[in-house]
């Protein structure tokens, strides 16, 4: 039994070169379908990884209640002072509370890919801001001098937008600003930002002493509950309190899910087309081997063995297609940098990430195409009439 199946399968596989054209067509079509699926998943995974890699459980983000995004929010310096005294907020060795009031405004940057202007976040920060971002480091140049028109630029901004190289001047309103440093935060979303001294930006945008968001280091991840309870009791503040992890997870959701919602139906639709192609190939394969199969049956091979042989051929072609597609997507797209408008209404720079999970999903889809493409031809090959062997073409 197994000998029979093995023998028929080998005959099938060895004879693939005789049907090189159609077999290649199947491989390429399945590779392309897998490639499209993996391309979309790489986009979605990359975007999600950037945002989810950003948050810290130990940092609370506070915005004006109902404002939904840093851009819309507005808070007074009095509220910052109140938060500094709030329960659950950590202090350093000198007893200084680790709280950072920040401004978030948008400036134009020129996208390298299209040459058009896009929204970049300019964050006004004080000295505490650095202590609330793990992994912050200046990779080139130096930090800005407080009180001056100097700014530092995230490494991702530099990659996707022109005009932000070290030493370049940028015009914001009537003033010129100089890029004095490039910073990295280990691939997180802050790398898509430009940072400058908060007091200078408050002046430029007529914000007085107001801020837009407050970040605070928590004494422990559980302390977020103390902070929330305090916020509800304290009439002088009206804040939405979230951990940074939650804050960025919310932002990742919409866009990443949308990309997958477009990617999957597209890939499945294309898969139906490829399935028809694979079916056609296997149908031809059985067709050209009619006499051969009939001969095998005549000398005692079972119909089942013939069917398995056909099915394995189809699965092998599909698996090769899936592997080629996955490999090509990996080589072409993995690590490719792109940017899109995030929910903060500013550009989020991210890198395409072809993940193991998505490669498995792609391979499963390829093999499913191979299975259904080979199913009917396989059944057909099991029922080849023995008389075919005698029929002369």
């Amino acid at each position, binding site marked *: 039994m197994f000998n029979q199946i093995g023998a028929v399968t080998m005959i099938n596989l060895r004879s693939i070169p005789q049907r090189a054209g159609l077999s290649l067509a199947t491989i*390429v079509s399945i590779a*392309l379908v897998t490639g*499209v699926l993996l391309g979309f998943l790489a986009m979605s995974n990359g975007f999600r990884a950037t945002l989810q890699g950003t948050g810290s459980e130990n940092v609370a983000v506070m915005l004006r209640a109902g*404002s939904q995004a840093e851009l819309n929010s507005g808070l007074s310096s009095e509220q910052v002072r109140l938060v500094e005294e709030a329960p659950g907020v950590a202090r350093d060795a000198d007893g200084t509370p680790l709280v950072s009031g920040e401004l978030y405004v948008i400036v*134009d940057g020129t996208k390298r890919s299209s040459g058009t202007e896009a929204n970049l976040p300019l964050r006004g920060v004080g000295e505490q801001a650095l202590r609330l971002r793990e992994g912050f480091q200046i990779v080139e140049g130096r930090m800005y001098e407080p009180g001056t028109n100097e700014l530092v630029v995230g490494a991702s901004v530099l990659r996707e937008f022109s005009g932000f190289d070290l030493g370049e001047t940028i*015009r914001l*309103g009537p003033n010129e600003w100089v890029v004095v440093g490039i910073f990295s935060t280990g691939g997180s979303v802050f790398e898509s930002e430009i940072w400058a001294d908060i007091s200078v930006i408050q002046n430029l945008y007529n914000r007085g002493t107001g801020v837009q968001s407050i970040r605070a280091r928590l004494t422990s991840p559980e302390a977020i509950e103390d902070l929330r309870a305090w916020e509800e009791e304290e009439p002088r503040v009206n804040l939405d309190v979230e951990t940074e992890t939650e804050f960025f997870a919310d932002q990742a959701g919409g866009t990443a899910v949308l990309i997958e919602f477009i990617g999957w139906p597209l890939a499945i639709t294309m898969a139906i*087309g490829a399935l028809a192609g694979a079916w056609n190939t296997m149908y031809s394969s059985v067709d050209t081997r009619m006499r051969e199969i009939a001969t095998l049956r005549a000398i005692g091979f079972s119909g089942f063995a013939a069917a398995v042989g056909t099915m394995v051929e189809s699965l092998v072609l599909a698996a090769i297609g899936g592997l080629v597609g996955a490999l090509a997507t990996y080589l072409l797209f993995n690590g490719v940098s792109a940017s899109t408008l995030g929910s903060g209404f500013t550009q989020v720079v991210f890198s395409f990430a072809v993940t193991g999970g998505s490669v498995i999903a792609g391979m499963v889809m390829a093999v499913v195409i191979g299975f259904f493409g080979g199913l009917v031809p396989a059944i057909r090959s099991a029922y080849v009439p023995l008389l075919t062997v005698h029929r002369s073409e």
Partner: protein
Amino acid sequence: MNDLTLIRKNLFRKKLRAILLTLSILIAFLIFGVLGAFYKVWTSGGELAADDRLVTVNRINFTVSMPYAYWSRVQAIDGVRNVSHASWFGGYYQDPTQFVQTFAIDAESYLDAYPELVFPEGQREAFINTRTCLAVGEDLAAQYGWELGQRIPLLSNIWQKTDGTASWEFDICAIFDGNTDEYPANYAIFHYDYYNEALAFNQDQIGWMVINTTDPARNDEVARAIDGMFANSPAETETTTEAAFNEAFANQFGNIALILLFVVGSAFTTILIIVGFTMVTAINERTGEIAVMKTLGFPAPRIFRMVLAESVLLSLVGGLLGLGLAWLMISGVAEAAAAFLPGLALPAEVFLTGLGLAVLLGLLTGIVPAINAQRVKIVTALGKQ
């Protein structure tokens, strides 16, 4: 039996094969049609833009406001026919997730700037004369089930009133539509003064200006005059055509055109290869027959044409079915998608491009087998058997 009958019989001699090929061609054209329609809606911002309309925003970024006084100063510039202004309200209805696209505008000049907005009898005047009126686009009204005469509160996620709330009460006294199906009637407008007087901060600031020039040829000159007027002020401006502004905004989401090109390209490469190799195989199987036809006196060019016609016919059948299905699907979701993708339809040019691609695909996949068939030598072909 004429040639066409022969071509048809040949095509469907192996029914399953013909059906499978048609199906894979259908899928490619379905994807082409659906993505083509989405792409048209996506880029419609550039096409719906009027030639004579300019947009002036703060040079830092369009989310940064500029002084209200700019509005009257621009009116004095030579070559300007009409100036209006608008401010982003950041509105939502009842719950922050129920987002409503709303702008605070100067009514008379805004309606003058956008002649595309069509109002039922009397509602245009009602909007201009009612301070608390909210003019709602038809698609938006349908989304929330709003009716004429209804009083609704809209909240802002940005602005606050001096009384500490962020809620403005509006009377819906006008429901407008666009003059074409493509025009997005999915937003609402209301009087700037009604909003501005209650603002707790950022009073007497406007978001951007919309300028109609007296002649599109003067656009550049007017744009330079406006930006020159505010140079070296705390709020410098940047003036572009409406089309360029819309295009830049669409580009913020990424290179959608390139992504679509990848997908459609993959779909077409797939069928090109599948159909191409199958046609070669199919014609090879018929070598003997073709030799017989030649013996019977069919001239080589006629055989060439017949094989080519067969693949073009196959590709047209699949292509038309695919485009037809795309049309059905798009018509099916157009209503449901009206709020965020207004004017979704399969445009004639996408359909015609699809037809052109179908003919091209037919010719490409048919050319090799057609040449092979034309070259069949009677002696060798019949000798084979």
